C-alpha cells in the first residue's frame, strides 16, 4: 500500500516506484549488472561468489515474503528449494528437456507442496507453524535420502547445466534475472491489496478476520508464491552446481537464508538483496584468509548474528530507513541549514 501513501512522488522516481524500485535500488541493480565486467570482479571466482550472493539474495526475498509479512517463518524453506532442485533435475535427466523448462516444473511442484503446507498448517500459529514447516523439511530430507532409486540418495544426483562452455558469466546473469523477477513479482504483490492482507493477517489474525480478510485464502496464496520461487531458485542451484545432495534440504541451509533475510531487515524484501552480496563476500574472504583456523569465520558469523539481533534487530533495512528519515529531516529544514549540514558531512 506504499504507493498510496507515496502518491506525491512524481516523475522518474514515481515511475520506478510503480515497479517497486527506487533510484538508489536501480543504481544498485546497475552496479550488480556491471560488476562482473569490472576488475577485480571479472575473475571467475568472484563471479561465483556473486552467483552465491544472488542465490541467497533471491532466496531471502522469497523467504521474507512469508516470514516478514505473514509472520510465518518457513523453517523448512531449504526443503522447498531442494524439492524444486530435485524435481527439475530428475525431469531433465529422465526426459531430457531443457533445464530452462524444467526449473519451472520444479517451481510448480514446490508451489504445490506450498499449497498443501499452507492449507494444513492453517490452524497453527507462531512457533507451532514454524515447527510444522520444519518437520516437513526434515521429513522431505529423510525421504530424499531414503528414496534413492529416484534421488540417488547420498550418492548425489548429477544434473545438466543451462549453458555450454566454462564461463560462469551467463549463469550470473540468469540468476540475477531470476532474483529481479522474484523481487518484482513479490514486490508488486506486496504493493497490491494482497500485501495489505498479508500484513494484516501477520500482525493480528483476529482483527484481520473481523475486517473481512479471508485468512485461509491469503495464507495459502502467500505460501504458494514463496515456495514457487524457492523451487525456481532450487532449480537454478541444481543446474548450476551440477550436483544435488540431500544436504541441500538441511535445516542448516534454511538458517543461512534466514540469517541473510533478517540481517537485511524483516518485511522489506530488498533488505535481503542488500545484505546478501557483502555478506557472502565477507564470509568467503574470512574463510579464505583465516584458513589456518578453520571455523573461526563461523564463530565471527555467530557473534555478528547475536550482536545484530541484540543491538540492531531492524537490520540493513532499518539502517536505510533511518538514513532517509534523516535526509528528509535535513531537507525539510531551511535551505541554509541544509547547505551547512551537507558541508558538514
Amino acid at each position, binding site marked *: 500500500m506504499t504507493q498510496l501513501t507515496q502518491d506525491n512522488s512524481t516523475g522518474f522516481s514515481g515511475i520506478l516506484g510503480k515497479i517497486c524500485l527506487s533510484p538508489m535500488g536501480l543504481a544498485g541493480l546497475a552496479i550488480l549488472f556491471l560488476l562482473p565486467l569490472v576488475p577485480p570482479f571479472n575473475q571467475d*571466482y568472484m563471479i561465483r561468489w556473486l552467483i552465491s550472493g544472488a542465490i541467497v539474495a533471491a532466496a531471502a526475498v522469497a523467504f521474507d515474503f512469508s516470514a516478514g509479512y505473514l509472520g510465518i517463518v518457513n523453517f523448512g524453506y531449504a526443503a522447498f528449494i531442494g524439492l524444486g532442485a530435485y524435481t527439475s533435475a530428475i525431469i531433465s535427466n529422465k526426459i531430457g528437456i531443457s533445464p530452462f523448462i524444467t526449473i519451472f516444473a520444479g517451481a510448480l511442484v514446490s508451489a504445490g507442496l506450498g499449497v498443501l503446507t499452507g492449507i494444513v498448517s492453517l490452524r497453527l500459529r507462531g512457533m507451532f507453524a514454524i515447527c510444522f514447516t520444519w518437520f516437513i523439511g526434515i521429513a522431505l530430507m529423510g525421504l530424499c535420502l531414503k528414496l534413492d532409486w529416484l534421488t540417488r540418495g547420498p550418492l*548425489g544426483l*548429477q544434473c545438466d547445466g543451462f549453458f555450454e562452455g566454462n564461463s560462469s558469466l551467463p549463469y550470473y546473469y540468469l540468476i540475477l534475472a531470476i532474483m529481479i523477477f522474484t523481487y518484482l513479482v513479490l514486490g508488486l504483490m506486496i504493493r497490491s491489496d494482497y500485501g495489505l492482507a498479508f500484513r494484516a493477517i501477520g500482525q493480528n489474525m483476529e482483527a484481520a478476520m473481523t475486517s473481512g480478510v479471508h485468512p485461509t485464502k491469503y495464507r495459502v496464496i502467500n505460501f504458494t508464491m514463496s515456495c514457487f520461487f524457492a523451487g525456481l531458485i532450487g532449480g537454478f542451484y541444481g543446474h548450476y552446481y551440477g550436483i544435488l545432495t540431500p544436504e541441500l534440504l538441511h535445516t542448516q541451509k534454511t538458517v543461512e537464508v534466514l540469517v541473510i533475510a533478517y540481517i537485511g531487515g524483516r518485511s522489506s524484501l530488498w533488505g535481503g538483496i542488500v545484505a546478501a552480496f557483502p555478506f557472502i563476500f565477507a564470509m568467503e574472504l574470512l574463510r579464505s584468509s583465516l584458513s589456518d583456523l578453520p571455523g573461526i569465520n563461523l564463530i565471527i558469523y555467530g557473534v555478528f548474528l547475536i550482536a545484530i539481533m541484540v543491538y540492531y534487530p531492524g537490520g540493513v533495512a532499518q539502517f536505510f530507513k533511518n538514513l532517509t528519515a534523516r535526509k528528509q529531516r535535513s531537507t525539510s529544514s531551511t535551505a541554509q541549514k541544509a547547505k551547512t549540514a551537507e558541508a558538514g558531512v
Partner: protein
Amino acid sequence: MVCLKKLFAFGVMLSLSVTIGVAGASAEKVLKIGGMAPLTGPSAKTGQEIKQSAEMAFEEAGNMIGDYKVELVWIDSQSDPAKATNAYAEAVERKGIQVGLLNWHSSVAIAVMDLAAKYKIPHLFGIGGSSVINEKYRSDMDKYNGYWLKSWPVPQKTMTGYVEFLEDAIASGKFKPHSKKVVIFAEDTDWGRDIFAGAKKMFGDAGWEIVAEDFLAQNQTEFYPLLTKWKKLEPALVFGSYGMPVGITSLIKQSREVGLKVPMICDGLGWAGEWYSLAGSASDYTLDMIQKLATDKAKAWAANYEKKYGDKPSPSSGGLAYDSAKLFIKVAKRALEKTGKLDSESLRQVVLDELLTGKITYSEDEGAITVSRFSYNEQSLPDPAVGVDDWYLPIIQYKSGKGRIVYPKAWAEAEFHVIQ
C-alpha cells in the same frame, strides 16, 4: 551520510584486500598446491587428519621439490559441493594454485572435477572412493583424463577379499557357521551405498542368505532396537561398513551389551584413530579390512604423528594422505627432471605419460605405508590398480585394540579366532 561514507570505505577496503590478494606473487620459484579437505562441517575430523598428514609428508621433504618451494594452500570443502566449488575457484584464481591434491567427499569430487578440467589443474589422489566418480570420469575420458585421480579404488574391487577369507576359514574348519545367514549393514552415505551393493552381490554369489539389510544414519548412537532385531534373526555373521567412529563403536559396544555373539565384520572400524578408546574390549574379535600400516616405516610414521599432534592417526585417511603426498612429490620431481619446471602443464604431462602408464609407481620398498604399491593403468583409471601386489587391503582381526592380519595367508600375523 556519515554511515554511507563508512559503508563506502568498507567497500573500498574489501576490494583493496581482494586486489592485494591477487597481486601477491613473488619472484621465487614456488609450486602452489591446493590441498582439499573438509576442514569444517561433519567430517572435519577426517579433514584435519588429511591436512596434518599431508603437511608431515611435505615437511619431511623440507617443503622443497628440487629448487621449487612448496606452498600448500588448504581449501576447505566444507563437506558441501556448492561451497567447495566456490572455494576451489577462488583458490585457483586468487591464490594461484597450480595443482590440486586430495579430497574426501565424493559429492565434492563430482562438482570439483569440472572445475579442475576447466582450469586445467590436475587434481590428484582424491581419497573419496565411490563409484560415482568413476562413472563421471568414464563418461568423458577426454575431458577429465589427467585432471582427476583417486587414491582409493571403488570398494567393490577390494571387497572380494572378505568372501575369499570366509570361504578359506570355513574350509579350514576354523569357522563353523550354524547357518549361512548374514546381516548386512552400511552407513547411509555414497560410500556405504556403494559397498552395500557390492556386499549384497558378493554374499549372494557365495550362497549366503541375507536376512537383514540396514542403512545407518551418520552419527547414530542408539542401536538397541536394531541389534535386538538382528539377534532374533540368529545370523551366523554380521557384515557391514560404517566409517563413522561414533556409530561403529556404539554398534559394537551395544552388540556385546545385548548379547549378540556372532563374528562381526566391521569394515571401517579402524578408520578413526581413537576407535579403541570408544569401543574398548567389546571390539575384540571383530574383523576389518584396512590399510596395513605394518612396516617399520609405517609404525614410525604413526608414532611421529601421535607425538606431533597428540592423537592416533588413522591409516585410511591420514596414512593414505601421507602416501598420496609422497607419491605426488615423486611425480613432481620427475616432472622437474623432465621439463625443468613445475607447473600445471608439466605435472599433467608427467601424470599422463608416466604415472598413468605405470612407469611411475610408489611401493612399500620406497616407503609406502598403507598399501603394497600405488600404480595406475588404462583399465584401472581413475582408480589405482588393485591386487595383492598393488593396492590391496588385508583383513585384520582386533584383540585388545591391536589389529593383526589374518588374511591373505602370505601376510598373516595371527590365526583367525571365532568369538566365543
